[in-house]
């Protein structure tokens, strides 16, 4: 396989590439689900192919093929060169790459139990046990469970001499209970929406999630929501669980710090960013307690954004994004780093698969936990009147990432430091920097979770990427609550 990647690279250089890189990958995916006591689907897929990226005359071309033959990879390399030459006809500025030492290495993500070695029967047995627990609760009208596993084995070679081989294995699992009644549909998910929790781990993740133990409680909450009052509309204190805070980070920090958005590359689709270059190191993004990093290193945790090298061959690193509330860094590619005068990329170029161009993508964008020991109960104890919200239900933000609105599956009215009563259809909205500046407490390390968001969309053609977001429960003051149902 590697010899075909080398051949594609050699062909691209021979045909005139100033710079070229090649990613040749073998991918495997397995997923299965249950629905109301029956199999939803059982599916397995594999895909292999090569993608060639070439720079000619300061312009890019990219071509990918699954024809892994000498002729096939030569054809892809030649096509990438031809496309780059066509690009050069309409060039805004020549692409220049920030320098990067060529690195070699072999890396395999930690995976204690190979998920592809686990029998389907055993996994289905667990999902059916969860399904039975969910449907044992009167009022549950739809029970869904699922697991999925990915493995990507990739070679990356560049004309600068990079030679890297990486294998990443990720796993995910979760369930949801729906309840239809009284002219409304309520839903509870565990451990998160978006199919549950997803991490760069093997089957050991499934054991850690304690799916069966949590099923009954979650199903009962879905049904109980019908009896709950509607979330009130007011401006006040909001407490978020860590999974919802993870998505809040994703949307209102992770996307606006993408330097390609800032520089206009995504203007037609994903949009721009309010974080124009003049704001770097000159914007109070959040309160003093807001410390956010982009960290692709395994030391940060087994996140969907953890790797050894990005898809430009840059080693995984940790960058400060927000330090004590001050905005201090973007996530970059080699080209965009050079464009703003940074000496190096911080290694955030990632491609969905061999057939897609790497783009600037989130790695693990995480808020650091509070340094002072603080539990969720203590967080709530300091709230005279407010709302606690848990598990995302809807999410929306404008194309410059200022105005957002989130809905959650479950809410609790907090009164005098305690959860007083459940409320349904909770939502909140705000302006990004105002929101992060209103954070006045965040729980400590033992309550911090590295969540996986498996479905982040970006690019044309659109690519889906898994990203990681570490977060702990946090408290925000003066937040607009209940806005989604405003009439």
């Amino acid at each position, binding site marked *: 396989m590697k010899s075909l990647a080398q051949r594609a690279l050699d062909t691209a250089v021979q045909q005139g590439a100033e710079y070229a890189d090649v990613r040749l990958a073998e991918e495997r995916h397995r997923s299965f689900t249950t629905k109301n006591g029956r*199999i939803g*689907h059982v599916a397995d897929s594999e895909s292999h192919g090569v993608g060639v990226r070439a720079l000619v005359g300061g312009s890019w071309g*990219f071509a*990918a093929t699954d024809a892994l033959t000498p002729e096939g990879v030569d054809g892809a390399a030649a096509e990438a060169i031809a496309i780059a030459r066509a*690009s050069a*006809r309409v060039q805004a500025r020549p692409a220049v790459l920030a320098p990067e030492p060529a690195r070699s290495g072999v890396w395999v993500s930690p995976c204690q139990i190979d998920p592809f070695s686990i029998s389907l029967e055993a996994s289905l047995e667990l999902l059916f046990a969860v399904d039975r627990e969910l449907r044992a609760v009167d009022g549950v009208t739809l029970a869904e469970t699922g697991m999925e596993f990915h493995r990507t084995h990739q070679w990356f070679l560049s004309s600068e001499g990079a030679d890297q081989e990486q294998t990443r294995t990720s796993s995910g699992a979760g369930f949801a209970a729906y309840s239809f009644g009284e002219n409304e549909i309520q839903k509870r998910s565990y451990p998160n929406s978006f199919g549950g929790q997803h991490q760069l781990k093997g089957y050991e993740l499934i054991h850690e999630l304690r799916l069966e133990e949590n099923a009954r409680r979650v199903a009962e909450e879905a049904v109980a929501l019908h009896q709950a009052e509607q979330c009130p509309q007011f401006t006040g204190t909001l407490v978020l669980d860590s999974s919802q805070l993870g998505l809040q980070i994703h949307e209102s920090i992770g996307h606006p710090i993408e330097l390609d958005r800032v520089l206009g590359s995504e*203007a037609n689709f994903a949009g721009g960013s309010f974080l124009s270059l003049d704001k770097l190191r000159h914007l109070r993004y959040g309160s003093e307690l807001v410390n956010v990093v982009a960290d692709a290193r395994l030391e940060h945790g087994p996140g969907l954004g953890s790797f050894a090298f990005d898809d430009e061959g840059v080693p995984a690193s940790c960058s400060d994004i927000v330090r004590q509330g001050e905005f201090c860094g973007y996530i970059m590619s080699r080209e965009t780093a050079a464009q703003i005068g940074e000496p190096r990329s911080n290694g955030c170029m990632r491609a969905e698969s061999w057939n897609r161009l790497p783009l600037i993508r989130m790695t693990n964008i995480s808020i650091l936990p509070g340094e002072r020991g603080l539990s969720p109960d203590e967080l709530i104890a300091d709230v005279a009147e407010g709302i606690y919200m848990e598990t995302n239900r809807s999410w929306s933000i*404008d194309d410059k990432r200022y*105005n957002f*609105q989130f809905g959650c599956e479950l809410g609790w009215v907090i009164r005098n430091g305690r959860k007083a009563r459940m409320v349904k259809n909770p939502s909140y909205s705000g302006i990004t920097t105002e929101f992060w500046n209103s954070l006045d407490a965040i729980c400590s390390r033992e309550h911090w979770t590295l969540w996986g968001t498996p479905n982040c969309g970006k690019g044309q053609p659109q690519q889906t990427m898994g990203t990681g977001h570490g977060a702990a429960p946090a408290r925000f003051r003066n937040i607009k609550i209940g806005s989604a149902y405003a009439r």
Partner: protein
Amino acid sequence: MPVNRETMASAPRTPAMRRDAMAPLLRPEFAHQLLELALSVAHADETELTLQAGSSALTRFANNGIHQNVAETQTTVSIRSVVEGRMARVSTNRLDPASIAETVARAEELARLQAPEPDLLPMPDPQQYPQVARAFASAMLTPEERAEKTEAMIAVARREKLTAAGVVANHRTAQALINSRGLEAYYEETGAEYSVTMQGSDSSGWAKASSTDGARLDFAGGAETAARKARLSAAPIELPPGRYTVILEPAAVLDLLGFLFWDFGGLAILDQRSFLTGRLGTRLFGENIHIHDDVLHPLQSGAPFDGEGMPRQRLKLVEGGVIRSLAYARQTAERMRREHPEIPAAPTGHGFPLPNEYGEAPLNIMMEGGEQTLEELIAGVERGILVTRLWYIREVDAYEKLLTGMTRDGTFLIEKGQLARGLRNFRFNQSMIELLNQVEALGIPTRASGEESFDMVVPPLRAGGFNFTEVTRF
């Protein structure tokens, strides 16, 4: 039976972006060879093979220059095996005989490890399909031709002192679906698309279009539309949130409507996850709302058969605001007849490939309109808001179909029948049931493209009391 390697290598991987490459992308004999190979090693009761081959290319520009430019070619085989009432699907893009045999073996192994599925029907017998010709040489753009069209759009931006970003894209795909009961279905399609955003210092405009026939696309015309919107919306003012009369352009209508049709499948009703649960046959929308599904309409795209090979039928979904019918896969129709005999149900050819959790959905939506142009609709508004497109739409409430999202790239105040000036963008929280009861006028339907939904044929419309709840900073 061994596969002819020469046929395999040449048939699906024919370079697709040349004008002389209009011989069929997938030859039936190639699909037959693969199925015969699969059957020669199969031990399943039934086997289905889906073959998808294609090439696509996309030129992307921003800041008035091409910055990304990509192409790909791929052929995928997918095997569905049924063993004693249990099934699994395994896919690969390795087409050599050993890999096909391994794929078949893995599908059968995964099927055997399950409990039998009581509702599983035998695979369908051979079907008849209408002829549809949707492969056009006009969609076969070379990299140079995509660059030329990009150049023309950027020339508009330079003339207007604006900054352009967008895409020029094209694809050619072919699909074969055959099963061990003798069903054979083939489909080939081309497509071309542009999307363009023009940005000024404090404003923007947007246009997008797609067609199976590249000759129908007016690339420079789209750029002119986007530039005009950017120019007219410069120096936007802020209006307070509230309920306003709106004109929704077709792209905005499309992206909202797209959230409805996943609920128009029989399985969504059986699962009680559809907003139509308990509302079938009732008048849910205004009497002026008529929606059907028609894959054969000349402005539509997509195969005339579903994921099992059943022919897609024309469906009358909404008539005079009344929910008239649903889409059904074979298995869903059977279950609906058994569990709810009062609901008429028959297979409509809208099923997704099996196995799946979601059953079926109509995906060739046609919303009927009126005779008025967009300009005539605007002329009829004393005070209101014109919405070019919507963005980041998400469902807030599943049963009320309450959606939230933002306006984007061309939001205008209308006064006395004319565009008065640009507006800062709004967030909306709007029930679709309420919206479709407040439609006051409909324009001429057109094939529309957005970013939140599949393409549809929809009109622009005027509606009263649209619920804008917040304003953003631009």
